[in-house]
């Protein structure tokens, strides 16, 4: 066993750091580091910069244009990107639908979709949840009926998806649809790729509790989807969906992101004064930061082990659920502490200040203005991608055999 970075790893960290520093546009960096709104253009721009450098898909194998990096290199890359203020890459294409297409898609699908995901020419979103199907995902009722007529061979899709993150940015949506009502619920689900520009697709925003627009409702009314957009076999979609969820969850360690947010707490605590000295020098507050930094250290090892296991050929499974629970709880705890650090100035509500070009007057220190929004938005982490209660169900069933 060896958990210490090698000389090559340290050199790689330097390489990533210097690349990110020289390539990340300052306007994007400033938005990220100051909790300002990041646009689709910002995210795509950063992605294309990575792509041009050959780093468009850190988690993909080389044969598909990925980097083929080791677990340690991926961790280092995420670390350096997050700490430098790079936007998070949109996971739906790279980390979610792409592994499914690689494993279950046909040659045409691989050639049609993967290069555009790699180059970020097309943005994806995930059509899983429905109004009546959240944790009980397999009960989904969006239907796809196969029709062969004069216009060709296609599916006619009807239904509604919800909580669809970044649907308003997406060119494509991968959808779980019901193609059969026979047998078990899980046995009648198919995995369909739908172009968001198809007639009948409507996106309506859902604002979160702090006026942030990340998620949407997606209505599908008589949407005609070419049958070539079916991944794998009809009615086998549940298998692919679960495979995808494993990949989704293994992306949940988010070490670099945590480190950046914890650094934000420290930065605030150094600037906020309490009883005449920096809050950071209050032993009680400092111990709270220390507790989270130590948990983050544990998460780093857990996350590394998860990626390392995958490199050894172990498919992502219930271990990822453990990391998801640990990581999302930590993420919320860090956000909570940031709000606590801000003291009374956590209270002012100035949504206009979330734009980098805001030129108005801040009620308090500018660094406090985005904290509440982030904290309230963080509540989603223990709910999405399988609520943490669903993760506990998975652990008790798959690992403990209960």
């Amino acid at each position, binding site marked *: 066993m060896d958990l210490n970075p090698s000389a090559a790893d340290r050199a790689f960290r330097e390489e990533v750091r210097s690349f990110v520093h020289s390539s990340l546009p300052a306007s994007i960096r400033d938005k990220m580091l100051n909790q300002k709104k990041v646009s689709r253009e910002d995210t795509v721009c950063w992605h294309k910069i990575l792509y041009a450098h050959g780093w468009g898909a850190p988690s993909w194998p080389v044969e598909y244009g990925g980097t083929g990096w080791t677990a340690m290199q991926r961790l280092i890359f995420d670390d350096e990107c997050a700490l430098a203020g790079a936007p998070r890459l949109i996971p739906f294409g790279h980390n979610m639908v792409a592994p499914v297409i690689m494993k279950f898609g046909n040659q045409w699908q691989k050639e049609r979709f993967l290069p555009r995901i790699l180059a970020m020419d097309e943005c994806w979103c995930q059509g899983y949840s429905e109004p009546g199907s959240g944790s009980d995902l397999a009960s989904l009722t969006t239907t796809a009926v196969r029709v062969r007529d004069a216009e060709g061979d296609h599916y006619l899709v009807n239904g509604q998806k919800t909580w669809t993150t970044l649907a308003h940015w997406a060119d494509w949506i991968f959808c779980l649809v019901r193609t059969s009502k026979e047998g078990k619920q899980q046995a009648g689900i198919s995995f369909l790729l739908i172009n968001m520009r198809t007639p009948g697709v409507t996106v309506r925003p859902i604002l979160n509790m702090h006026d942030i627009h990340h998620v949407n409702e997606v209505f599908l009314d008589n949407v005609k989807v070419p049958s070539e957009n079916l991944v794998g076999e009809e009615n086998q979609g549940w298998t692919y969906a679960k495979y995808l969820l494993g990949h989704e969850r293994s992306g949940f360690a988010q070490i670099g992101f945590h480190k950046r947010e914890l650094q934000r707490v420290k930065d605030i605590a150094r600037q906020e004064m309490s009883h005449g000295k920096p809050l950071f020098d209050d032993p009680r507050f*400092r111990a709270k930061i220390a507790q989270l930094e130590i948990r983050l*250290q544990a998460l780093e090892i*857990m996350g590394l082990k998860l990626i390392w296991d995958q490199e050894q050929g172990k498919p992502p499974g219930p271990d990822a659920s453990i990391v998801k629970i640990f990581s999302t709880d930590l993420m919320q705890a860090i956000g909570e502490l940031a709000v606590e650090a801000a003291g009374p100035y956590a209270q002012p509500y100035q949504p206009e200040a979330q734009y980098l070009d805001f030129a108005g007057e801040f009620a308090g220190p500018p660094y406090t203005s985005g904290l509440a929004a982030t904290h309230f938005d963080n509540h989603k982490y223990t709910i999405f991608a399988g609520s943490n209660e669903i993760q506990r169900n998975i652990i*008790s069933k798959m690992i403990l055999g*209960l």
Partner: protein
Amino acid sequence: MDFNFTQEQTLLADSLRRYLAKSYSLPARRQAIAAAGGFSAEHWQAYADMGVLALNVPEAHGGLAAGPGGNPLDTLVVMREFGRGLVVEPLWMSAVVCANVIGLSGSDTQQSALLPALADGSEVFALGALEPGGRYDFNHVATTATASGDGFKLSGRKAVVLHGAQAEHLIVSARVSGKVADATGVALFVVERNAPGLRAFDYATVDGLRAAEITLDGVVVPQSAMLADETHGTAVLERTIQLAGAALCAEALGIVEALTDTTNEYLKTRKQFGVPIGKFQALQHRVADMLVCVEQVRAMAYFAAAKVSLEDGEARRNAIAAARASVAEASRFVGKNAVQLHGGMGVADELIVSHYVKRLTMLNQTFGDYEHHLAQYAEAMTA
């Protein structure tokens, strides 16, 4: 990066696990506790035969270690099995703590005089580093060492010295200069347990071990008994306590794994309302959370073993403090929920659960507890 253990480590762990599963049942453990000295000479010899007492002893002095400090990963696999086996024999104190004190500080002559008997198990060693009123501060040394003839005269008291009355040799810290809590001026001495002026008040600990209050009343030792002089004592102690701490994290890992296994097994067999209680989601989620804690302990036990050999003293200190705080935090959750999920049986003496929980609680209070390590980490934390 690599999470695999070597083949030798895996084989050693397997043979230890098989031995302990076969020979170290709860009744066998009770017998060991009741034996003279509070541990089983027979098991002790078996560990010696397997080589586990020699892992932290340099090859030149009858051991298996390439150098001082041993291989912390070897120690990890052994301590994890000893945790699972809930072993009461003084492996940790003698073969990890004292082997390292001697290996890190002793001259060649001292090492060759002391270590072969430690490595083959024929003699037991114990370290007295903490004192009444000093909690976990090993710089808090009121025990004095004053020059006397060719050697020193030692006076003072050492607190909760595990296996202190059973050890043939005690290693004690004593102040040669400075004030009680100064970070310098502390030397380390080997004292024979039957030395005139040494009194050991022997008692049982709540987790099945033995410990002693060691009183030194003008104990005279020769110059050759000094392992580390006053310029090195503190550094040796600090390094030793870090190695000992990493080993305790590994022992905790063995215990929390075993507690989760046994709890899970209980949920599958115990029936209420006509079904195994493991069918109830409230209990499933509790044991799932225990498993999350087990992974936290595993991560930090590995982390401690990986970082305890770092040359950078500050990084090493922070890493061990982080690991021990984290292990203590997660251990507490596993321990109390293992009891809770066993219901009434959890508080009974009859099952191993309560014995695991007692050991887990006390090991997280040995050489520093959660608050101690959290404060240590927090003070040094970079802004």
